[in-house]
């Protein structure tokens, strides 16, 4: 039952945990109309701080809490500088992405060689006995289970619950939401912080389960940018975002699995290949929005045009209308 292939397949869901947390966090933040562009740095800083906290106290809980706190703190700084101080959100996010990464490497050098903590695998009682699915999905760490739950929770929060309606409102038509009694900027602060905390949990998960802290996170630099791309790829929808995250990790997994098959290609190429592929996927979901595509399609015969429209519509994503635009109540 525990064949190597299944074991290897199961690792996809474990590896995807941090990406899932980051994508869910960013989805919430961007749904509220704020772009947190700092992910690539804040994930690494949260990983470092989470590792430091867990390693010195011996407590996983404190490690994850510290990671979440750092993620929320960086996100709050973005909210403060863009919402209150009216600075360019993209600029602030970019600088923070750079600065927090450097900070993580600088301070993290002190924690190289400290005791390594790795989350234990906790098989779920009945579910893990299901053939094939059980060992793949339900012989994981608690945080991996939490990552599944986070996706479901985000979905219900955004689309099935009342506060989610307000969340969509402040990202799409903040003025209308304001008129209906929503404190737009306060809510944006809250969602940015919550989203940042989720990103921080993802970071801590890297250093406490998927990888470990050795002065950096090998092979992880760039993951924050990918999480941002996946958020767009998923059309700001938690379930589609999760699919994107699993797809990306599947590509990484394929790279590692294929490497022995193609020995004359350098291993570093397999490491970087998923990154451009993910961006190409982004192109696919965006191209339906372009004007020239509409024009070209208009020239096609009726049947094929309908089909093409259907395909493109299905993939097309549109951002929250007020994404990145500051709101001022007159």
């Amino acid at each position, binding site marked *: 039952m525990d064949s190597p292939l299944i074991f290897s397949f199961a690792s996809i869901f474990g590896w995807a945990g941090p990406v899932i947390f980051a994508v869910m966090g960013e989805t919430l933040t961007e749904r509220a109309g704020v772009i947190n562009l700092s992910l690539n740095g804040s994930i690494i800083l949260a990983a470092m701080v989470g590792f430091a906290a867990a390693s010195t106290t011996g407590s996983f809980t404190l490690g994850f809490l510290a990671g979440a706190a750092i993620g929320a703190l960086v996100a709050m700084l973005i909210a403060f500088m863009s919402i209150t101080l009216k*600075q360019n959100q993209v600029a602030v996010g970019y600088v923070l992405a750079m*600065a927090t*990464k450097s900070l993580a490497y600088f301070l993290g050098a002190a924690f190289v060689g400290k005791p390594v903590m790795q989350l234990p695998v906790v098989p779920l009682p009945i579910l893990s006995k299901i053939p094939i699915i059980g060992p793949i999905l339900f012989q994981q760490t608690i945080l991996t289970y939490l990552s599944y739950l986070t996706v479901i929770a985000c979905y219900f929060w955004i689309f099935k619950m009342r506060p989610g309606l307000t969340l969509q409102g402040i990202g799409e038509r903040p003025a209308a939401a304001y008129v209906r009694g929503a404190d737009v900027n306060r809510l944006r602060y809250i969602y940015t912080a919550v989203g940042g905390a989720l990103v921080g949990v993802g970071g801590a998960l890297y250093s406490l389960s998927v990888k470990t802290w050795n002065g950096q996170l090998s092979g992880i630099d760039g993951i924050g940018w990918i999480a941002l791309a996946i958020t767009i790829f998923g059309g700001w929808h938690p379930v589609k975002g999760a699919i994107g995250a699993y797809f990306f990790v599947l590509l990484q997994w394929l790279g590692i699995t294929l490497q022995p098959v193609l020995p004359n290609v350098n291993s570093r*190429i397999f490491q970087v290949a998923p990154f451009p592929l993910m961006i190409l996927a982004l192109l696919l979901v965006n191209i339906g929005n372009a004007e020239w595509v509409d024009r070209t399609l208009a020239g096609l015969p009726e049947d094929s045009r309908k089909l093409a429209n259907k395909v493109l519509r299905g993939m097309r994503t549109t951002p929250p209308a007020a994404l990145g635009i500051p709101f001022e109540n007159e």
Partner: protein
Amino acid sequence: MTTQTIEKSKPNVGFFRGLLIRRSTSLIIAILLAIAFTCIVLEMMNADPVQVFKTMWQGAFGSWDAFTQVLQAWVPLILATMGLMFTFTAGLWNIGMEGQIEMGAIFSYAVIRHFTGTATPGGLVIVLAFLSGILGGMIWALLVGLLKNYGNVNEIFGGLGFNFIADAILLFLVYGPWKPPGVAQGSTKMLDAIYWLPQLKSSYLSLWALAVAIIGVIVVTILLKGTYFGLKLKAVGKNPKSSFMLGIPTSRYMLLAFALCGVFAGLVGALQVTGFQHVLRNSISGGYGYMGLMVGMLSNLQPLLAVPIAFIFIAISKGAAGLAIDMQLDTNLAGVIQGTLVLCVMIMNGVRTLLIKKSRGS
């Protein structure tokens, strides 16, 4: 002086408020904040800030040799920043600069590799290598622009994507077909000395490279500040919709901004190969694209202002390089100081505009 009198004529501007509102004092406060934050970070690592700053000063300006190294590294940074001036002016975030520099380096190395061992004079090969590098950088930048214009892919993600692809190509080349005989080192064979840009005696500095940088600054300043083209580009950046209404072909101007930025990226790539590194290697771009974005942000679309800012940034980087040897501290301190500096300036800018608005409103 004139601003001072204007501020003073305003009612209810207290002493501290005055400090925050005045541009010069606001900048000084920002710098002090950044230094304070750096000191806190250093205290966390049990390092003596005074000792650290002394070591960094020594590392950057302690000797003629150190100073020429700062000057030499200033060249690619200022050129990268000058390229980014075009995209910044057009309201674009060319985060793909890093990959464009790599492509420039690959293209220029390809030319030199082709001519190595032939009778073609070295000077001519260097010129061809520069032209080819410029072409490479330009193509890579245009791809991001085309993706933005025709694929609706935001230039930040398009740029990052092409950075990753350029990385992959570079890795493939230096570990694959262009690998020198023997174990793969992540770099190609050293160029023959006839393909090096001439250097000053007993230093790494090339006056040719320095000249290219200075000419670059002058050209960009004239183009952006003194021509109709610069004005239109600025209009596109400020408000693409209304400039389109006014008859400026917005998307063509954006593409042009990308192309011009790519030209400078290619220049940096070619300089890295012929002037500084003399090989093609992994991470040949040296982070100048990423750093250039920060310098560009601080310079506020003023090319001449970028000259001293780039110099300070490079001095911090070079200064921090010595920390690893002398004090066993990680060199990433440079990134911490640079990032904090930009953040603090932005915070103080925000505070300043907020206060000015308030005192006008009341």
